[in-house]
């Protein structure tokens, strides 16, 4: 899981928070962490349905990685720590270089059939015979039994860089503001 640490700084609450009992301070930290978690969750869910660029480009079914994200929160001595579990979510923080694990190549989908599916899936679900033409860095299949031409399914790569996408998560300022609102509500009520 990718961790996002947020320090909520509300100078006008510092004096009040310092006078809270340790139990109440703990409650305050939990409430803030909870609010930040919910803010991250909402952001992901509102972003997810619009974030299907590659799938749309290929005319394929989206993988739903963001829609299936899990968001957890906890507190540490400094503030709230939100954990986001979604494939590739680290690109929200930095450009992400991915490399093959337990295999020689990454398979980058270039065909709607390939998007979000492994070579094994194509074989087992659709009976597609995937092959690598001699000397080429791609995997292909013969469409409609065409024996002359091969259609590219995946490009093979040793690594790929996913660009930095900070918009996948709320900004630090948004998170801080959300946490501060929750803190104010917790201390002063409504």
């Amino acid at each position, binding site marked *: 899981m990718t961790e996002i640490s947020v320090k909520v700084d509300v100078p006008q609450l510092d004096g009040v928070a310092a006078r809270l009992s340790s139990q109440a301070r703990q409650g305050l930290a939990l409430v803030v962490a909870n*609010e930040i978690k919910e803010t991250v969750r909402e952001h992901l*869910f*509102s972003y*997810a349905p619009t974030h299907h660029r590659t799938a749309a480009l290929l005319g394929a079914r989206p993988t*739903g990685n963001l*829609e*299936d994200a899990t968001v957890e929160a906890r507190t540490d001595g400094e503030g709230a720590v939100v954990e986001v579990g979604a494939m590739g979510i680290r690109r929200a923080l930095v450009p992400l270089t991915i490399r093959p694990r337990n295999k020689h190549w990454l398979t980058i989908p270039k065909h709607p059939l390939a998007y979000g599916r492994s070579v094994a899936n194509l074989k087992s679900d659709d009976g597609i015979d995937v092959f690598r033409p001699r000397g080429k860095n791609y995997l292909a299949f013969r469409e409609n039994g065409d024996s002359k031409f091969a259609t590219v399914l995946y490009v093979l790569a040793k690594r790929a860089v996913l660009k930095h996408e900070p918009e996948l998560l709320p900004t630090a300022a948004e998170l801080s503001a959300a946490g501060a609102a929750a803190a104010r509500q*917790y201390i002063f009520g*409504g």
Partner: protein
Amino acid sequence: MTRDEADTKLRELARETAAAAKGYIEKALQPIVAGYIAGELSLGEARERVMDLAELSSPRIDLMLSTQKRRAQSIGQLASQDRVQRELYPAWRLVRNAWRGKPRTDWPERWAAAGASCGFEGALQNDFIALKDSPIWAALGRGEGGFRDTLGDPFPPFAFGSGMGWRRVGREECERLGLI
């Protein structure tokens, strides 16, 4: 929903999923095994069919798992509803938060029927917004109006394979809309 209740609900969900998957696989396996025992299928044919079954059932199992995951996400959302959340965001808005190839288009009818069943208590008629404790959520989950694909839960996704979910609605907006 307290955290303990949420934990219990999640355990029930896991048991229910396992039972459904087991039931589905057993039901599909039965005629193959029967055919093999009766000598209507050779061992090779039976093996082929079992392998086909695993392949054919994968989209259905995916859908089942995805629905259960979305239910679990909602349970997590409900467990996060502390006093502060209820004060800052008194209502939910029903929105599409997951892509679907063929999305249901009957949510306005579902909302109208669910609302009519509870007199739109704490709910808007012209928008999918209702207070968190409005009975409309339970009515949606029960499939008021004769919708038979619902899951019986007072929380999203409400219906099997649905991509609908909740977004929070802030107090100011609730006041502006006349909900509180």
